[in-house]
């Protein structure tokens, strides 16, 4: 599903440049649930940004579902993001004046799905995250866990190939975190490919594979026995 070869990325910081990714090689198969771990400054967010086509790499190859991702125009990148990727953010990033259902329908709007179909699909995904009764509520009327569940529904609504989650539980207490992880695991059980960036060990162990990043290099890549979040809920 995802294939990365010798990926380099450096940022210019005034006169000197900061080499963040120093040659990453990494492969993700369909249906995997991968945790990307590392301390801050290890390059994990940069890697996720490149995977999410929010940023470009300096050198190296990136193939997503057989499509080479290189030198994309803004418009093309927007199309690929819409088609291939679903984002889940630490701070949810819901649009605050749109109801839960409208937020979920937004990626479909950019796919030019007709309004009625959009609404139906949004309701369907809200139901899957267990928030159908809250469809008409604004994000300000929802709890943190509910917001993240709306965000997950939004990420899934466009039926992407890969879900990218950047610290999805970073802003939540542990109980809510486990609820969210439970949801992510269930989505993964249905065959969806998911990448989770996190620095929490327990969250990482709820994935099936852990990739450790340190100073811009992968230092460890191991399959783990998945801890089901269900038991903590």
């Amino acid at each position, binding site marked *: 599903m995802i294939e990365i070869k010798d990926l380099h990325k450096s940022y210019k910081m005034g006169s000197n440049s900061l080499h963040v990714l120093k040659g990453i090689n990494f492969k993700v198969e369909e249906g995997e649930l991968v945790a990307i771990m590392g301390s801050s400054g290890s390059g994990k967010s940069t890697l996720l940004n490149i995977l999410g086509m*929010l940023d470009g790499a300096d050198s190296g190859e990136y193939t997503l579902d057989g499509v080479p991702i290189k030198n994309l125009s803004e*418009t093309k990148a927007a199309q690929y993001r819409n088609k291939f990727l679903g984002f889940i953010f630490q701070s949810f*990033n819901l649009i605050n004046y749109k109801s839960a259902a409208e937020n979920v329908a937004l990626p479909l709007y950019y796919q030019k799905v007709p309004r009625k179909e959009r609404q139906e699909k949004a309701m369907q995904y809200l139901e899957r995250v267990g928030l159908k009764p809250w469809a008409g509520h604004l994000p300000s009327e929802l709890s943190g866990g509910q917001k993240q569940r709306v965000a997950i529904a939004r990420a899934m609504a466009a039926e992407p190939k890969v879900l990218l989650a950047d610290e999805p539980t970073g802003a939540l207490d542990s109980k809510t975190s486990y609820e969210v992880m439970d949801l992510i695991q269930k989505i993964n059980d249905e065959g969806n490919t998911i990448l989770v960036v996190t620095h929490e060990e327990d969250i990482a162990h709820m994935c099936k594979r852990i990739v450790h990043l340190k100073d811009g290099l992968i230092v460890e890549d191991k399959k783990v026995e998945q801890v089901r979040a269900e038991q903590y809920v």
Partner: protein
Amino acid sequence: MFDRDVWQEIFNTLKTNKLRTFLTGFSVGWAIFILVMLLASVNGMQNGFVGQFNDDATNSVFVRTGTTSKAYGGFEAGRRIQLKNDDLEYIKQTFPKDIEYISARYYANATARYKSETGSYSVQATHPGHQAIEKTLVVAGRYINEADIVNKAKVAVIGRKVAEDLFKTEDPLGKFVEFNGLPFRVIGIFTDDGDDNAERRIYAPVSTYQRIYGNTNEIASIALTYNPNYDLTEALEFSERLEILMKRRHKIAPEDQAGLSVWNYAEAFNDISSFTAVLKGIGIGVGFLILIAGIVGIGNIMVFTIKERTKEIGVRKALGARPSQIVNLVLLESVFITAISGFVGLLFAWMILAAIGPMIETPAFSNPSVNLSTVITATIILVIAGVLAGLLPAMKAANVKPIVALSDK
């Protein structure tokens, strides 16, 4: 572009920033208000000028003579040029197609007496055609006719003021009034919209006065109206031909205006038109400058809005919004604010003009108003202004980098 989601977003931003939207919209509305008012004022001035000139037929031409200022054709400068009856006949025969009405003018002063009342008035001795040229309104009796000219009849058409002065409450028609001791029968009374002074005038047949003053065939000036179907160029071309022929006939240097001049109302109209055109230009210029301030204001608010919504725009881009969709959103919002506030300004200006415009009726300024074309132009300007105001902020928004917008730091 015009789907419900876009509008929902626009209304939402406007709703959450009511005061800011109002203040910015006000600047554009105000600018359009001033622009329309300025144009209406220029219109009012134009109406006023035209009203002034309407007193005379607008297609009139006057031929006047004086003393030559240049030596020409073997004659020295300083020769007095005198028009005669045959000049009038000559013009009539030379330009049969160009001339509508023609009349000679002979000026005199008369001390008029009726019973114990006396007064001093100016007399214009004319042909019947003069009535149409001067747009004299005969309110009682009749004007001079051809028979009066042929018979050299001692008849007079007196102004309303003259009638009031001499006859008080009596009906002057048919009564005899003495001009410098000679009895003239009053055949008509006229009024003049132009001014009161014109109503202190007396019209008499030109032939009568020529006989009284030494059986002469001299005339002071010639007044005529040209074919009313002529446009400005044709009219000017005609008066030019007339001038050339008259100067040749009297052996005057072609450029000598002191010897003989042909004065065409169309020229004055032309001058007024260009004068008001300049005023209009100034009005539009000033209005535009004010409008620019309004546009900058809207642009400012849009930049601000986008700064506030950077994160939201980043999220949208992460979800697959294309740059062009973001640009559309911002431009539409900008055009919307500009158009709505501009229309309010336009409506206000229009209402004020409709209410007080018709009441304003002074010689130099009357009925300021705007026409449909001004309104349409203003609307187009507003839409363009909205696009201009939103363009820079929209491009800024389209360039928002999702990672920068999404970083939680």
